[in-house]
Structures are given as C-alpha cells and as structure tokens.
C-alpha cells in the first residue's frame, strides 16, 4: 500500500515515494519465511533548474537543467535514486531447500536529480 508522503512543501518536486509490497497480498507468505514484504519505493517528481542545487543533485543535473532552461528541446534532469540498500530473503523452494538470498541495491532510500 502506498504510504502517504509527509506534507512535502512542493509535492511535485523530485522525492522518494514509499510503497510497501506485502507478500501476503501476493499469496507468497506461504513460501517466503522472512521478511513479511519489502519497500518498493520509487523516485518521482520535477527537477527544475531553480532547485537543482538543493535537490540532492549531481553537477551534471545542474548543467542539464541549465541547458533545458535555454533550450526546452533538451530534456530536463530526471529524478533518480541516489542511495540504495540491499534486502535479504529467506524462503523455501519446491525441493524442500531453505534458501537465504541476498539482493544488492533493491530498496530506494534517497532520490535526487541526475
């Protein structure tokens, strides 16, 4: 379920949107031992030139936003993950094996213009 974002001063600007996938909703709780679900957060929002210096952006995004301001044909900088974290899943397969699997860079912690 989408977790309501805190009252962001400018909701349309680039920021992290939180989304929790509950494995029970998918009927996967029967074979996934842990965790109960995982945070499928995503990045979304505008990267206007005026704010690229504050939206946790890369220098490249600043230049892209500047070029977009000069020539709108050039696309704006985009809202992308800037910090990711891993998840581990403990589950059982059809051969009665118990598996602990680790996935890098699965959860979006922070977003910025890139």
């Amino acid at each position, binding site marked *: 379920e989408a977790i309501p974002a805190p009252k962001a001063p400018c909701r349309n600007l680039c920021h992290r949107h939180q989304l929790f996938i509950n494995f029970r909703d998918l009927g996967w709780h*029967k074979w996934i031992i842990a965790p109960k679900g995982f945070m499928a957060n995503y990045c979304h929002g505008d990267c206007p030139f005026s704010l690229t210096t504050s939206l946790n952006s890369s220098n490249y995004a600043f230049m892209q936003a500047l070029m977009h301001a000069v020539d709108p044909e050039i696309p704006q900088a985009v809202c992308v993950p800037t910090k990711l974290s891993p998840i*581990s899943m*403990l589950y059982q397969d059809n*051969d*009665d*094996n*118990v598996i*602990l699997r680790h996935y890098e860079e699965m959860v979006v912690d922070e977003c910025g213009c890139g």
Partner: protein
Amino acid sequence: VQFQEYVFLQFLGLDKVPSPQRFQPVPYILKKIFQDREAAATSVDSRDFCYIKDFGVRGNVLRLLPDQGLFLYSRKLSQASSCLQKFLYFNLSAIKEKEQLTMAQLGLDLGPNTYYKLGPELELALFLVQEPQEGDQPIPKPGRMLVLQSVPRPQGVVHFNLLDVAKDWNNDSQKNLGLLLEILVKGNRDIGVTFQLQDACARLRQSLRASLLVVTLHPEQCHPSSRKRR
C-alpha cells in the same frame, strides 16, 4: 494492476511460485545471518553484502539442502561394531549455472545434547559413492573415504567440509551418486553393554538428520564493491 508475477519470480531466480508441502526447520545460522543483514541494511555501514563473515566466504545465496537418502539394512553388517549405515543424497539442481560454489558444509545432527545416556563413543566414517549401485547390491559400494572421526557420544552436530566433492557434483551431475555414512560403536562389547548399544543405535536412527549447506556467488548480482556510489 496485473502484477507481473513471473517476471518478479525470475528476478528472484525462481521459475515458478514455490508451493512447499511441508515447512523445513530453519537452522539457527540462517536466521542469524538474515537478522544481521536486516540490521546492517538499515545502518549506514556500506559493508560488502556478498561476503558471509560467519563462514568467511563470498556469496549471496545460501541453500540448506535436506538429505534425500535412506537408511540401509544389510544382513551382514560391515563390522560387528556397526551401529547404522545411511545413504546420503543431496539434490544440487537448484544451483544455477552462473553461480560459483564457495562453500559446501555437511551437517550431521546426531541428536539433542543431554546429560544422561552419555554413551557410547562413536566413530563416523563417510565414503564417496563412485559407482552406481548394482541390482542385487544391498548397499552402494563405498568409494573414497572422505571422513573418519570419533565423537564422544551420540549427541550434537558435527560439520564436514565437502566443497571439492560438491564442486565435482555441480560440474557433472552424473557424478552425484551420493555418500555412504557408517556409524560404528567404539569400545568394549561385553554382553551387558550390547543391549544398551542397540538402544543407543535405535535412538540415533530416530534422531539423525543430515543436511548440506551450500553457499554460492552470483557474479551478476554481486558486482565488486568498487562500484562507485553517487
């Protein structure tokens, strides 16, 4: 929104939704590693998550494979002191081709630690089965001896490193003909003791659990930690 389940399953390295008939017990070590990682994922230290410090090996997938072999009952036990013989078999087909095996640890759980029934001392002999069992053979022919180890009493868990054997099996599944475990009783065999030994061996047959814990490294999911973060 139609959730593209099969795409997500493939991402998890699965070809279909598992529907296990019965839940296997989760060993303490897997729970511990899982909880350590859950804690580390929310902390700031960006450690190498494809290194398993509990075992000192690199890897991102740990699988506990249950033994699928059977106890063997042969009229002529190999030795008077034989307590039990068991064929051990582990199905490695879940390991995908691109995965590199970095650990294979055989675990033999002889039973709970207790303060009573402390005898007898045992000897564990583990053989590689290298020839298919013939029709009239009561037990598979023991090949190369892998382990010969004494344990003071039929209690607790003993571990053996079988990485080289598992790599052979993983490289050529035809070679995976299983293992032969023989547990012998050490020490004297006077009449009075024999009855207790039969009792101890019967208990051991009840409690013995074998499993193979394998760790693999999936290179595409474990790029070197040198990857620059923003």
